[in-house]
């Protein structure tokens, strides 16, 4: 453990802003790369299902 | 010679989730005119582009003189004349220059016969004006002059009579008649009635989509 207190941990020796900004960005990018395909999948499945139902009804 | 030129087996094509044709099979023999029929949007142009090798968005097999067409692309292209919705005429060049370039693309054609071909399509006196000053019909006639030059055995013509006046249409039909009489084959589409081109076999695409 290289920090003695929580505030020290937050301030990161004066570089807190930079470090935390980076990690926030990193987290955002990772989440984006997971959430985007998952949302895309549910959208796609719903759309394909709808079309399948339409096709099954019409002929 | 009524040997089979083009053979199509189980052709399938869809665009934007709409099946245009499915399990389409037919043969085109030498000396035969095949007219592809169908309403607007039924897939005639799509089919002709697939047959000519321009489009590869299809499933199924196409054979040229018994060989799968993928294998004999080069030979097939040497035997093919394709006339599409866009006539392939450069607006800044004169009719003569346009046809000269076409002759260069097909080494077996004789540039000396360009003049004669232009005369045949009624463009005498327009040989050396730039094509963008021609009327719509004259513009397409420049491209139709290729029919008079060509020595290809298979002609694929997509609405060749668009914008052409009645006398022009009659002349083109006579030419098509001569071509098949010599053993060539023609696949064409047109929304006008063919008159006097002899026996025409038609393939209708209208109900193709529903089958699949």
């Amino acid at each position, binding site marked *: 453990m290289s920090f003695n207190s929580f505030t020290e941990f937050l301030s990161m020796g004066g570089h807190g802003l930079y470090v935390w900004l980076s990690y926030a960005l990193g987290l955002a990018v990772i989440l984006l790369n997971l959430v985007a395909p998952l949302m895309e999948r549910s959208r796609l499945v719903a759309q394909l299902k709808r079309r399948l139902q339409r096709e099954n009804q019409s002929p | 010679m009524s040997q089979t030129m083009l053979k199509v087996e189980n052709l399938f094509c869809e665009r934007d989730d709409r099946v245009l044709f499915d399990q389409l099979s037919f043969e085109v023999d030498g000396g035969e005119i095949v007219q592809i029929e169908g309403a607007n949007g039924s897939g005639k142009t799509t089919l002709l582009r697939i047959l000519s090798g321009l489009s590869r968005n299809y499933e199924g097999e196409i054979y040229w003189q018994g060989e799968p067409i993928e294998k004999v692309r080069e030979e097939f292209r040497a035997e093919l004349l394709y006339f599409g919705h866009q006539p392939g005429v450069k607006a800044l060049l004169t009719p003569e220059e346009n046809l000269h370039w076409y002759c260069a693309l*097909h080494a077996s054609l004789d540039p000396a016969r360009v003049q004669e071909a232009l005369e045949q399509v009624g463009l005498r006196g327009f040989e050396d004006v730039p094509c963008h000053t021609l009327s719509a019909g004259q513009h397409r006639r420049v491209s139709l002059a290729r029919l008079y030059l060509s020595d290809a055995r298979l002609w694929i013509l997509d609405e060749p009579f668009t914008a052409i006046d009645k006398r022009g249409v009659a002349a083109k039909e006579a030419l098509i008649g001569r071509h098949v009489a010599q053993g060539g084959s023609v696949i064409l589409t047109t929304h006008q009635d063919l008159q006097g081109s002899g026996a025409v076999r038609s393939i209708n695409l209208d109900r193709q989509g529903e089958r699949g």
Partner: protein
Amino acid sequence: MNQPLNPQRRPAIGMGALFAATLKRDLKLSLRRKSELVNPLIFFLMVITLFPLGVSPEPGFLAELAPGVIWVAALLATLLSMDSLFRTDFDDGSLEQLLLSPQPVMLVVCAKVLAHWMLTGLALTLVAPLISVMLFLPAEGVPGLMLSLLLGTPTLSLVGAIGAALTVGLKRGGVLISLLVLPLYIPVLIFGTGAVQAAVTGLPLDGYLALLGALLALGTVLAPLAIGAALRISVSG
């Protein structure tokens, strides 16, 4: 009047003729509008004019800028004229005819790129001395500038043509092409300006020229393949 249909023909000759015919045709197309001939040049001259106006008219500062600005302008002039390389052919159906020809597409493509280069890269190289004077480039740099342009601009045309072929099927590819092509232009830019700067400071520039030559050789071998493939793909879509 048609020739009898003869299945055994197709002379193997005609390749050189096709190359020459295409070159002549493309040059003719450009020269027919007289404005087209001078335009890449005028664009080049104008970008050069904008710099003293926009940045600073001081000779010393301009001389320092000159190699970079000239090369950036050459790059943009090439890029600007690139989009129309295949687009008009695509729009009027000539491209389809070209792809349906039994002759190798690469041949025609090479002729077209050569024609394009003659009217942009070559022309730019020839006016480079004039530009150097306008931007106060020291006289020692001029041969280096011309040599580097001569070796570098064909690569720009070749690489640009790949972008043009990839975007030709799109309804509006005008700006997309810059996005595709500019990153690929960067090595040429760097070596080109490097050569000029070396020439100005009196350092040897053969290294740079050799690199530009190597890029050109690579481009000449690979680009026509890529262009041909890209054209078939674009038209089939």
